[in-house]
């Protein structure tokens, strides 16, 4: 930059290298995921272990779509919000915000990387389910794929929303586990307990994101896919929008002890 350039001329800059930026973000996110052994345990070992356990006392055919949905929840929602809280406390997010990388690309990079991990996870669940528990191959594979992508986007958005209410990384595991188990408990209870009136069951079935994800994955996989299942997809999308809006307003990039 020459000393004689006027401020006005200096502000006209070439466009940011958005393509290389996004490629780099996805590559970096992938690297840090595959290098973190404990994250891989929760993403790959735990769901399969859970599948084996649940298959002992339940019809494995019911359990396979359930485990697939749980994988999206634990990776997209729980894992992401813990990672965000840690990176925020370590000042990693603040450091990146001091570069020209747009926040939208940082978020998109994380979402794409999370989607890759979840697709691998779902493939493993399908392989194990079909290979070991005689589950059928997905009846509507493209609808299933679409639901996995939509579900991932929704729970990534909710992961940012959750991270925005986590004060420090120390409290992150407790808060995310409470959110995860709470969502799971409510979802399962509503479907299983007969004493719950029908209208409340309807709200639970069609209104909660996890229930909507489990139901729709189940129907796309095992069939039959009904027109009413589109409502589940809409429910998911609505929760994703709520999560995104909340995050835009509340998400912080800087450590909590800074004003």
């Amino acid at each position, binding site marked *: 930059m020459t000393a004689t350039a006027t*401020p006005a001329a200096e502000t006209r800059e070439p466009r940011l290298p958005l393509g290389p930026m996004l490629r780099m973000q996805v590559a*970096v996110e992938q690297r840090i995921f595959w290098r973190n052994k404990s994250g891989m345990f929760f993403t790959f070992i735990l769901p399969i272990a859970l599948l084996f356990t649940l298959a002992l006392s339940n019809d494995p055919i019911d359990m396979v779509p359930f485990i697939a949905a749980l994988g999206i929840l634990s990776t997209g929602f729980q894992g992401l919000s813990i990672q965000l809280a840690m990176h925020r406390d*370590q000042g990693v997010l603040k450091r990146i915000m001091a570069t020209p990388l747009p926040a939208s690309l940082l978020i998109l990079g994380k979402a794409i990387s999370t989607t890759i991990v979840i697709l691998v996870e779902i493939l493993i669940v399908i392989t194990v389910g079909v290979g070991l528990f005689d589950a059928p191959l997905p009846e509507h594979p493209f609808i299933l794929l679409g639901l996995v992508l939509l579900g991932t986007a929704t729970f990534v958005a909710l992961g940012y929303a959750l991270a925005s209410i986590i004060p420090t990384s120390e409290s992150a595991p407790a808060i995310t586990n409470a959110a995860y188990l709470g969502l799971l408990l409510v979802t399962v209870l509503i479907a299983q307990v007969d004493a719950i009136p029908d209208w409340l069951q309807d709200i639970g079935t069609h209104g909660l994101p996890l229930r909507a994800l489990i139901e729709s994955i189940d129907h796309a996989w095992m069939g039959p896919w009904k027109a009413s299942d589109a409502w589940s997809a809409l429910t998911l999308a609505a929760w994703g929008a709520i999560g995104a809006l909340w995050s835009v307003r509340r998400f912080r990039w800087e450590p909590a002890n800074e004003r």
Partner: protein
Amino acid sequence: MPEAPPRIAESQPDHGSTDDRVLDSDVVLSVRGLVKQYAGAAEPAVRGIDLELRRGEVLGMLGPNGAGKTTTVEILTGFRERTAGDVQLLGLDPGVRADLRALRRRVGVVLQQTGHLRYLTVRETLEMHAAYYRDARSPAEVLALVGLEDSATKNVRALSGGQQRRLDVGVALVGRPEVVFLDEPTTGFDPAARRRAWDIVGELTSLGTSVVLTTHYMEEAARLADRVVVLAAGRIVGSGTPEEIAHDLQLGTTIRAQLPDDVDAEALPAALRRGFVATGTFELRVEDATRPLAELCSWALERGITLVDLDVRAPSLEDSYLALTDETEPEGST
């Protein structure tokens, strides 16, 4: 808090100083009347400070903790909104979103409380940052600049504190910034590491980079800065070259000694009496110590008095700094 900070209109050519400095292309940073009042805080953290930085210069911001250094740097780097004042950084305003986007490409920052992804190596970290700029420094070049060649393949989390700080500096240099903000870059360093960091700053300015450096080490400011501002309780209490600051205070030279308890002020030569602080204590501040020192010594020799702990000292930057910050201490700090 989100309300827009008042700005001086730039479209009025006859309004003196504001436009002069916009036209002066050598001035890369100009701050006028900067104020920061945090919500809920009794006192403003920054109470109207002025700064100016020219191309290739190092501006040292010196001050104790809570003086407002970090708040100022975070406002200038777009991490905080200012309450009032005018800021021009490379002709842009970091408080304006569109300007800040442009500044992110041209300004490097080393802030406090930042970190790097722990599962990446040093080289991978630099490669990641290189992807954010059009004309980035290669990882090899940055590694050489900050002296981390031997740690290139190390995991970030395996670095020592000093090495991590050097990586912080390295990352700030990837985009060939025109201005670099270094917020206490050497806090917690051992003397050898500090000297290496100083060499890096020297190298930066030789490349034409302008630097804003905050520190609470006198020695660091004296060594690196072309000009120093001393901050205390959110105000500038002194500014100039390191030498000027020491001189402007006119601290003079201090002669100190212990006197026998039976000596009172009357016993001293007339010219030295005002140095009698209390029984047994002599402390005299003078412009030129030659004559008073000779008088004191010959008086003591005549009486057969031994001057215990005789001490003659010229002012150091340390003294200037303490004198400047002491004056404002009763006001408290943030």
